[in-house]
């Protein structure tokens, strides 16, 4: 009986896939067609990727500010859009991805965020997505977060960050951005991205100070929250998630200091101290003597 049901389920799945493939609506994901002039905006989930998309959307399309509805046709996320749709976009394209190291991504802007803050944000995100209940203890969530149990294909925070750092850090075509630096000096961070994009055959970008300030203004947490209220229900990323929980949350750094139980902080730090220190994230607890991982350093 179960096997009949299982066969039926598979048959329906296969038919649905076939239908999507034939009509060009199959989601691209890992199978996305990559052009040599593509720039990928990569990060672990909950690390500021959507904010960065808004910043760039508002800078590159100044006459028509970014919204949750138009962002997917400007800087689309590969997990929500069909390959056919993204192939038709004007090039060079900017694409959002959460993959660990991908050898075929030609240029990458990688955003990294303090994993202690990622933990808090990801915790709330998983409540919104219905993966864990409202009252799920943080102390139970953090070990699962460290093990990379949510969104398994993206690996753990360490897997994701380290795979990119070990292979691409210090090579041309790779720009590492810390979320914390972006928050502290957004103008500077955005200028770095502009310089990187212009080095990547992007047409000249209007990055005069007033243009930068306007893009930053249009991408503020307040505005993004207001937009989310208005149109969040129609945005693919939020389809099927709880509408009583926001996607745009606190948008601050250092929340872990007040919100993360000390044992959870200690668990994250003892798991990832080496990588955290190499990224400049100071540890709250005594650090184990460690070396800095860098490209090519093996033994």
């Amino acid at each position, binding site marked *: 009986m179960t096997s009949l049901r299982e066969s039926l389920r*598979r048959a329906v799945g296969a038919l649905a896939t076939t239908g999507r493939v034939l009509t060009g609506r199959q989601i691209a994901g*890992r199978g996305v067609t990559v052009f040599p002039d593509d720039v990928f905006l990569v990060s672990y989930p909950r690390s500021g990727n959507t904010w960065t998309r808004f910043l760039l959307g508002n800078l590159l399309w100044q006459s028509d500010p970014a919204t949750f509805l138009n962002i997917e046709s400007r800087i689309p996320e590969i997990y929500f859009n069909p390959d056919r749709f993204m192939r038709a976009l004007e090039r060079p394209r900017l694409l959002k991805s959460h993959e*660990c*190291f991908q050898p075929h991504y030609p240029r990458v802007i990688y955003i990294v965020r303090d994993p202690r803050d990622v933990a808090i944000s990801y915790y709330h995100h998983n409540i919104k997505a219905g993966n864990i209940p409202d009252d799920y203890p943080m102390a139970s969530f953090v070990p699962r977060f460290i093990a*990379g149990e949510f969104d398994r*294909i993206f690996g753990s925070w360490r897997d994701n960050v380290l795979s990119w750092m070990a292979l691409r850090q210090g090579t041309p075509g790779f720009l590492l951005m810390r979320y914390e630096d972006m928050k502290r000096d957004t103008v500077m961070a955005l200028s770095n991205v502009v310089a990187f994009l212009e080095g990547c055959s992007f047409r000249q970008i209007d990055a005069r100070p007033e243009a930068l300030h306007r893009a930053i203004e249009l991408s503020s947490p307040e505005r993004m929250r207001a937009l989310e209220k208005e149109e969040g229900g129609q945005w693919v990323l939020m389809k099927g998630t709880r509408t009583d929980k926001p996607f745009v949350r606190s948008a601050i750094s250092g929340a872990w200091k007040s919100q993360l139980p000390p044992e959870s902080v200690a668990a994250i730090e003892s798991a990832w101290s080496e990588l955290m220190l190499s990224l400049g994230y100071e540890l709250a607890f005594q650090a184990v003597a460690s070396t800095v*991982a860098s490209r090519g350093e093996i033994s």
Partner: protein
Amino acid sequence: MSITWNRLRYGARALLGRNPAGRRLTVFPDDVFIVSYPRSGNTWVRFLIGNLFDPDDPITFANVESRVPEIYFFSDQQLLARSRPRILKSHEYFDPRYKRTIYIVRDPRDVAVSLYHYSIKRKTIPPGYALEEFIPRFIAGEFFEYCGSWEEHVLSWHATRKSHTGFLFLRYEDLLAHPEQELAAIANTLHAGVVSERVARAVELSSAARMRNLEEKHSSEWRLTRGTRQDVAFVRRAKSGAWQSELSPALVSTIERAWGTTMKNLGYDLLVDGDRELVKS
């Protein structure tokens, strides 16, 4: 045009549940993966492990795909039907979902020589193709685009998984030098309490001479060699250091310039060690 054709082919295969699993594979936590860049001893390790677990029914090229299947030859659905824990062959660069992994690395200069002959066998390059043309394309990772370059492949696993439980990093050269010792380490990683006679027997059943004989028998049936040139062997020299006679010093130095630091860190001595002082050993 080719995109439309690909889409049709993919669609038809999806309907039949026949798209090769590859990176779309469903991964279970108890799966064991034998991972390497192509031409680095993966098939040999498949024989070793298969023969270790079932010495009474030795691995041949005719049964290897049913015992230690390659994820590029079967659909996810077909592989889901296998009994667990599965032992699977993969050439993927770092995939965070793999929890138990035997990774084999081989001197890239030997990989280059082996891949050159294999590419002739697969008819991706004509016989007599200039090595001077081949080597830069090899360095750029052109022959197996889904794998990345040799260095990307090795580093992606090594940087993320080194000294993790369930991850074993093996050098092909060490496996050649001490097969029984290394196979015991593999057995240990797989938590297989295996006695030494069995290890010795598995090594014997997987010798290059025996594998060559088996290849002669089954080459036209085996998925990996079917349709390739039957006059060029899949099991080649099964030795290390062939590059010393087959690659010109200029080509050796091209490879070493590209990947020297990583090679040295893996214990592969460089022929042209220009920056001896600069590189930490």
